[in-house]
């Protein structure tokens, strides 16, 4: 396809942000706000949850790990969803920033999934009497973790970065079938993991004094996730720019 073809009307709004310079300018202004929001909300939520929220009548103080576990689990799936959206953007519109963002979401999402698995396992030992059980929810999250790792490895396995982005995008879209399985695993199978407490339809079935710090933590974690991904994508854009400058200089020296 001709490089000078104007983007289709629907894609034009997206392509405004494809300009790396504009992205760097906008994200440079947004990043400190998002990072501070993330840090502040997470700290508030954690302090509230750890010291002021009531202990559970059945689980005692062990319930407090929920304020880390649930936001991490939510971000593990949210991260994969954003990875899939970036993949669609990169496959359909060849959006260059979506490529970079997808490559940077991978490790961050894997880290949050690992955090979710680790905190769940620490909670499971006193509550279920085992570090790990092979029920549907835990297994599907473990598969999600492996999918993240596979994506991270695949994107970085090619000498030509473009090829890595394409392959990673296709893999991310194949792996997206796992997301509904994670979401509904607690409803479809009779799992040890409890079903969802907070639903879009209907009131949450938890005490409001525990709900508030949990929501604060979830919001804070989300802002934190966005901040880390933004910072990493900015670094990747600048890295690419530096490589371009170095290549240009090497070619200049060659020509002389």
């Amino acid at each position, binding site marked *: 396809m001709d490089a000078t073809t104007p983007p289709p009307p629907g894609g034009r709004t997206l392509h405004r942000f494809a300009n790396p310079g504009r992205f760097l300018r906008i994200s440079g202004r947004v990043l400190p706000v998002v990072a501070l929001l993330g840090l502040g909300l997470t700290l508030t939520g954690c302090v509230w949850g750890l010291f002021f929220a009531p202990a559970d009548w059945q689980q005692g103080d062990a319930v407090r790990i929920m304020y880390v576990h649930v936001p991490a689990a939510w971000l593990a799936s949210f991260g994969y969803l954003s990875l899939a959206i970036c993949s669609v953007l990169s496959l359909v519109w060849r959006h260059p920033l979506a490529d970079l963002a997808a490559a940077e979401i991978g490790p961050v999402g894997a880290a949050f999934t690992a955090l979710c698995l680790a905190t769940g396992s620490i909670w499971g030992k006193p509550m279920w009497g085992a570090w790990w059980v092979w029920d549907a929810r835990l*297994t599907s999250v473990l598969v999600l973790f492996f999918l993240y790792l*596979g994506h991270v490895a695949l994107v970085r*396995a*090619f000498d030509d970065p473009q*090829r890595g982005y394409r*392959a990673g995008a296709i893999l991310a879209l194949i*792996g997206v079938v796992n997301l509904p399985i994670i979401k509904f695993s607690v409803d479809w199978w009779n799992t040890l993991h409890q079903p969802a407490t907070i639903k879009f339809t209907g009131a949450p079935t938890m005490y409001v004094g525990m709900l508030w710090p949990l929501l604060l933590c979830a919001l804070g974690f989300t802002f934190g996730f966005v901040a880390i991904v933004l910072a990493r994508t900015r670094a990747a854009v600048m890295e690419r720019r530096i490589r371009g400058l170095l290549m240009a200089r090497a070619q200049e020296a060659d020509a002389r």
Partner: protein
Amino acid sequence: MTTFLALLARELRLSLRHGTDTLAALLFFVIAAALFPLAIGPAPETLGRIAPGIIWVCALLAALLPLDRLFGADLEDGSLDLLLLSGLPASAVAAAKAASHWLVTGVPLLLAAGPLAVMLRMPEEAIPVLLAGLLPGTVVLSLLGTAGAALVLGARRGGVLLPLLVLPLTAPVLIFGVAAADAVSGGLSARPHLLLLFALCAGALPLCPLAAGAGLRSAAE
């Protein structure tokens, strides 16, 4: 359609001429499964209980073995570019490759699984169900494997990367396949598990060649 069949015939002829390469996966399957009785002891009650799991896991690993040569040789000598120019859509090329992988690796695994199950002292009434589960199971493995092989085409150390990508995706097939055989041994109906396996197969049949075709196109660019 004629081009598709011609491509399939070419693949089958190639694998016939490289007989040892083709048999290697089957031999791996048999030897790996034969190691389990040596490792965990020959007690029939233990062996018979875990036999479906052994056979499924070994079949899965054996099906992975020929995958890195599935497109690798074609990419190296340039015939992949010709295949993509042959008028077939890239997904049809991938579908032909998946079909040849299933015929050359999946069917022999299926044939060897029966005798192996007997050797592993599996309850006799569960063996037909195990094979009925392996039938759609190996098809899904071939399809997913083809998609994975197309994705890692041209990667550094693609052979190491391939299992990392494909194995997590095969988890549902493994779970339902073993559950079907276990259900019969426990006196339950295997029907729901087998239906789910066939549903997975029906889903993978159109989707995996599409993904593999996209991977092939980006590899040949």
